[in-house]
């Protein structure tokens, strides 16, 4: 307790030097919390969007479907297993068919993924009910806003759509954009044309076939065994977690450098402090302080930079982080090209664990950094210290 009191008095007495160190450390502290919070938010939001819009709580895939093998796509459809029908009829699952095709907006060809889904489905947060309209004999389709923008079409525009049916024969018809949907999930938007599953099955002559069955996110009941393979949301979002982890590791270098700079300041102050206060140390020993108490005092003085930095960071950082948490960070449109589910506006998530964890890490590193130059006091002779010498 005495040591704590003395350390506090010494830091207070050191004035601007103390505050500069504390300020630098608090910036490092805040940067770590901010970046970590941003990555946590990015991951959670991306997973939530995926779950909400196309992955549900998981997906059954037909045997041939492999999203990482484009060559498998032409054959990635099969008859929906009968064992899944009860859950489909109960609205717990919905089939989706992925089929390659091409469109010709303004006489330019663009390869697209035709995505067939039930008009009445509620499993995916996609406005498929908009497909239930009379489209003047055209094929009614829905486009995402990014896709519509990239091919320069609007609601009501017509373009030619081409595909090969199940027998390999080319076929084409004009399609009409009946709705342009707004979604945070660019993977179901960019390069995709949504149409009614029954219609897609009809024009491709692949009746009762689909590529996958998406399970509702709220469904927690038993999942039947079938010849289609079940992939949980955890498996399906592995790419998101891997990417965020990779980004987070990259970020570690950034805040590692920041911390190193802040710790260098603390180290420097400690070395300088020991050098300048040799006589003071001799006096303290003459007054009855042991070498161990001296080591504790000087280490604690260094550690207290960490404690005060956490307090200072909370004072000026909490409102900043709160504002950032409320308004989010809007990303440039370029993120659409990442090929991953990334929301346009990222909202960081600051958990208690993250903040406490960061405080502990900062305190431990600051304490170690403070202790390293102080170790040599274990050999200090009071008479040398009083003469301003280091033993």
């Amino acid at each position, binding site marked *: 307790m005495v040591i704590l009191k003395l350390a506090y008095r010494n830091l207070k007495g050191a004035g601007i030097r103390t505050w500069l160190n504390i300020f630098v450390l608090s910036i490092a502290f805040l940067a770590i919390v901010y970046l970590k919070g941003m990555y946590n938010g990015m991951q959670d939001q991306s997973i939530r969007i995926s779950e909400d819009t196309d992955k549900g709580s998981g997906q059954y895939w037909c045997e041939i479907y492999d999203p990482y093998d484009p060559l498998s796509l032409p054959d990635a459809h099969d008859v929906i297993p009968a064992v899944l029908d009860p859950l489909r009829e109960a609205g717990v699952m919905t089939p989706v068919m992925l089929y390659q095709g091409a469109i010709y907006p303004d006489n330019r060809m663009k390869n697209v993924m035709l995505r067939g889904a039930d008009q009445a489905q509620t499993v995916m947060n996609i406005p498929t009910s908009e497909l239930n309209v009379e489209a003047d004999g055209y094929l009614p389709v829905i486009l995402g806003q990014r896709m519509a923008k990239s091919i320069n079409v609007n609601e009501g525009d017509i373009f030619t759509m081409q595909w090969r049916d199940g027998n390999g024969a080319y076929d084409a018809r004009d399609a009409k954009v009946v709705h342009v949907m707004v979604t945070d999930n660019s993977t179901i938007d960019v390069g995709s044309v949504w149409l009614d599953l029954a219609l897609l099955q009809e024009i491709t002559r692949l009746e009762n076939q689909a590529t996958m069955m998406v399970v509702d996110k709220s469904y927690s009941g038993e999942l039947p065994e079938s010849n289609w393979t079940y992939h949980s949301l955890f498996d399906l979002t592995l790419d998101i977690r891997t990417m965020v982890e990779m980004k987070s590791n990259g970020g570690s270098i950034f805040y590692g450098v920041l911390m190193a700079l802040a710790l260098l300041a603390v180290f420097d102050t400690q070395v300088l402090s020991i050098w300048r206060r040799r006589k003071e140390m001799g006096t303290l*020993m*003459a007054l009855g302080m042991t070498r161990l108490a001296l080591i504790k005092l000087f280490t604690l003085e260094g550690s207290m930079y960490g404690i005060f930095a956490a307090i200072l960071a909370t004072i000026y950082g909490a409102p900043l982080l709160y504002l950032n948490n409320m308004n989010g960070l809007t990303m440039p449109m370029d993120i659409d090209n990442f090929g991953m589910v990334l929301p346009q506006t990222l909202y960081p998530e600051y958990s208690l664990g993250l903040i406490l964890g960061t405080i502990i890490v900062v305190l431990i590193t600051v304490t170690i950094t403070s202790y390293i130059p102080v170790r040599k006091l274990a050999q200090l002779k009071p008479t040398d210290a009083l003469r301003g010498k280091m033993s």
Partner: protein
Amino acid sequence: MTEAKLIHTHDLVKAYPVADREFVALKNVNLEIERGEFAGLVGPSGSGKTTLLNVIGSLDIPTSGSVTVLDSKIEVLSHKQAANLRNLHIGFIFQTYNLLPVYTVAENVEFPLLLLGKSSDERRSMVEDALEWVGLTDKAEMRPAQLSGGESQRVAIARAMVKKPALVLADEPTANLDAKNSHRILETMEKLNAELDTTFLFATHDEKVMQYMKRIISLEDGEVVKDETK
């Protein structure tokens, strides 16, 4: 602590390695100092005054021989025991005052009491008493940088005396002070010696200080050459 002899040295030798040879700072010093004495170690620079003071104050250990201070044999004390002896029974006054610059006058005086684990109330009252002895009650909240040399040394005396130690060791306490302040400081210490029965041992070569000493121990080249009581 009831024994009259506060300090006893027997064939005390202190040698330091200097380059490739040994410098003997104290040669077979035999000395006895009793409780309540007001004594001075005098001699020219390099005669061993400060070294003797440091050994008696358990800041250093003898190379050979024996030193007993308040029944504790300095040569066998561990670092912690030596710190404890200083903490409980010895007060130091230095030539350069050695006040802690970031503390106020009151905090400087309070410091030894913090190490002794005194309660807040006890500390407050003891600090008030100590500042009153040296006439600095009105400067309690000032920092050392705001004080004159004389005032700083009076704070150092208050710090040494606040715990009412059995022994106060003062190393050239007036070296940085003018005549007026020197006399004032010495009168203060003389008064405390009389009132609290604290033993004072000075290291000095200042004639002004010597006038006040009741016993003068002269050192030359590390040896006691004269020991006279007035």
